[in-house]
């Protein structure tokens, strides 16, 4: 039928030595090609009836064939995977183009694109996998690619540490996933999506212990990758990587893998309502937590990072209350405007000579008009301003937080607060960076080259119109979620409240940051202790360090000293010494001294004598 491998060929890029620019465009072409192929897949799917679309399993390569267990390298082409793949390759292609401009000065240019392509490949594997085995393969590969990309600037110690942190937390998630996979195999006898999901409704009682455990373990994996509480600490630090990396990984793709996982396994999750509550709760708590911390950060990328965490919390909230396609819809719109914001931030950073502290920026509106406008659009979308893409998806989430199958008023209330926070921090960032007078006029900011601004504009357009794709998304994805389409609740009251929350946040930002500085200082003083807590991310990093890192390091040290030195080194050394002693003893016989030989002879004689006498 068709080969999505065109995109996979990007992998063959790995390690090629090309002249710089050619390499960059080659990588873009690979991803662009993958995008086109995905479009083809979309068309193909459309040519079939909705019911048929579910089960396109294309076996690429039979791998393990043994009695009772076979494992094929196969991919599943269904609405959900195509949907995700469109986002991955589409936004990915845009980011590739952008990177050509951003990484222009970097001497490791080609390596960057190699890694980027690797990442797209890994993500494709993850999304296209037809069974849990390859899901985990893709999962781990994505973790690897993100490690390589975050720590891309290997000279920068903070970057390397951040990459390591990200990888370690990811691995924790991997462990959960693998165990879950084992359990799934044990229960269903197969790791195949098609088999498992078909059998799910009949295989368990709802809230059965085993299904709870399975879904919980899957959640561990999802939360680790999507940076939800409590496995979220790697995300802000991951901003050490180049900005396009942040855009790709942390806005559009990797962090959404967790949401994808839940959506994909919705058959399993619907069998475990308790887990669903857990998902929604963690989602909304993360949204609040991240939103609150994001309100006081002053590094552009960190604010956006916390925003990402918060928005993914929204997505989890959506899937947690049972409206999976709403979550996916928000995933899509978020990919648009978040990538836009990240790339816009990158544009700013690039022109301010790698400055990331917004307290040192200001007045960029005049220096970088295109970035200004696109960033503005992105901010509107993020905050959920009416008629932007973000508005539609967020509305639906908030609405369903109340009306959804597992929704309740608490979720809804918390979600509203998070929406307000979103508006606030978004525009705080915006005002600080773009409005007012420049705080460092000597920096001479300039607009970025078109390679960078073109993707910005495309994404801005998508952020505006993407919202109208909502109904299409729901319908397209509905077969995957057992044919349900989320109902559009026309509760005007709730809508008004939600909108006003968003606008309220924005206005609060306006009030504090556009008018005099005194308000800001005043507010800070009043809320000083809260401010401290927020600023330090609720000290979670420190808590983790104390509880986990120190003991683990301690154990390592202990083993080193005792076990290694005394135990193993000791015994090995002893052995060596004994052998040496022995050989020294034996070498006496070779001394060349006549009398020693004489002694030997006499000794031999005596021995024989004794032998003869006593035998």
């Amino acid at each position, binding site marked *: 039928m068709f080969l999505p491998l065109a995109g996979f060929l990007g992998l063959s890029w790995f390690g090629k030595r090309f002249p710089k620019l050619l390499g960059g465009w080659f990588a873009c072409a690979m991803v662009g090609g993958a995008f086109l192929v995905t479009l083809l897949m979309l068309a193909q799917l459309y040519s079939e009836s909705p019911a048929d679309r579910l089960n396109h399993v294309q076996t690429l390569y039979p791998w393990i064939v043994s009695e009772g267990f076979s494992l094929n390298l196969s991919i599943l082409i269904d609405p959900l995977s195509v949907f995700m793949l469109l986002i991955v390759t589409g936004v990915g292609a845009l980011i590739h183009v952008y990177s050509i401009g951003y990484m222009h000065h970097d001497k490791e240019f080609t390596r960057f694109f190699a890694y980027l392509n690797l990442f797209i490949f890994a993500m494709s594997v993850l999304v296209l996998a037809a069974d849990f085995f390859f899901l985990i393969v893709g999962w781990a590969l994505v973790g690897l690619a993100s490690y390589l990309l975050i720590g891309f600037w290997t000279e920068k110690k903070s970057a390397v540490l951040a990459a390591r942190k990200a990888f370690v937390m990811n691995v924790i998630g991997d462990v959960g996933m693998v165990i879950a996979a084992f359990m799934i195999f044990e229960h269903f006898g197969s790791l195949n999506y098609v088999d498992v999901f078909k059998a799910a409704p009949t295989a368990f009682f709802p809230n059965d212990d085993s299904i709870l455990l399975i879904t919980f373990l899957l959640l561990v994996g999802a939360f680790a990758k999507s940076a939800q509480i409590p496995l979220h600490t790697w995300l802000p630090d991951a901003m050490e990587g180049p900005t396009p990396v942040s855009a790709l990984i942390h806005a559009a793709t990797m962090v959404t893998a967790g949401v994808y996982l839940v959506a994909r396994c919705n058959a399993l999750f619907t069998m475990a309502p308790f887990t669903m509550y857990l998902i929604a709760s963690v989602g909304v708590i993360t949204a609040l937590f991240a939103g609150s911390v994001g309100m006081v950060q002053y590094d552009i990328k960190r604010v956006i990072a916390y925003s990402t965490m918060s928005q993914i919390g929204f997505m989890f909230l959506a899937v947690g209350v049972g409206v999976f396609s709403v979550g996916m819809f928000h995933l899509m719109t978020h990919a648009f405007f978040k990538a836009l914001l990240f790339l816009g931030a990158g544009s700013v950073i690039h022109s301010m000579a790698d400055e990331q502290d917004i307290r040192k920026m200001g007045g960029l509106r005049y220096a970088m008009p295109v970035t200004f406008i696109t960033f503005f659009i992105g901010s509107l979308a993020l905050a959920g301003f009416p008629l932007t893409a973000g508005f539609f998806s967020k509305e639906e989430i908030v609405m369903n937080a109340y009306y959804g199958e597992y929704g309740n008023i608490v979720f809804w209330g918390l979600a509203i607060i998070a929406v307000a926070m979103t508006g606030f921090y978004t525009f705080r960032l915006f005002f600080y960076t773009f409005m007012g007078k420049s705080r460092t006029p000597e920096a001479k900011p300039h607009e970025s080259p078109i390679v960078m601004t073109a993707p910005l504009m495309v994404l801005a357009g998508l952020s505006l119109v993407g919202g109208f794709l909502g109904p299409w998304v729901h319908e397209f994805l509905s077969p995957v979620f057992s044919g349900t389409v989320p109902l559009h609740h026309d509760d005007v009251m709730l809508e008004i409240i939600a909108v006003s929350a968003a606008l309220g946040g924005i206005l609060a930002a306006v009030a504090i940051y556009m008018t005099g500085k005194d308000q800001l200082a005043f507010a800070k003083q009043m809320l000083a202790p809260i401010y401290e807590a927020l600023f330090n991310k609720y000290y979670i990093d420190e808590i983790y360090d104390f509880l986990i890192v120190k003991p683990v390091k301690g154990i390592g040290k202990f083993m080193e000293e005792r076990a290694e030195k005394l135990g193993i080194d000791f015994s090995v050394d002893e052995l060596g010494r004994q052998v040496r002693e022995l050989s020294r003893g034996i070498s006496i016989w*070779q001394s*060349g*001294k*006549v*009398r020693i030989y004489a*002694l030997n002879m*006499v000794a031999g*004689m005596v021995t024989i004598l004794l032998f003869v006498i006593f035998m």
Partner: protein
Amino acid sequence: MGSEFVLFVSAAIFSIGALGFVIRKNPLVMFMSVELMLNAVNFLLIGYSSFLNSLDGQIFALIIMTVAAAEVVVGLAIILTIFRTRHELDVDRINTLKG
């Protein structure tokens, strides 16, 4: 006077010779000890040939004496040569056979 007497005397002289050989450092004295051992054996042989009324012992003793003489010649020649080149009369220091 019984056969045991010959045995004991012979054994005693032999051990004295052996001990002397091992303990002494002077090559000449070591050689003398070797002669002692040979003589002890001769004594034993002859003594027992008398008790067992057989001539074999005496014939063997004669052969041994011949061999001893030849050996003395060779041995003394070696010692003399070594002494001439090294002026050393301590057997422990002649250890070029070492290793």
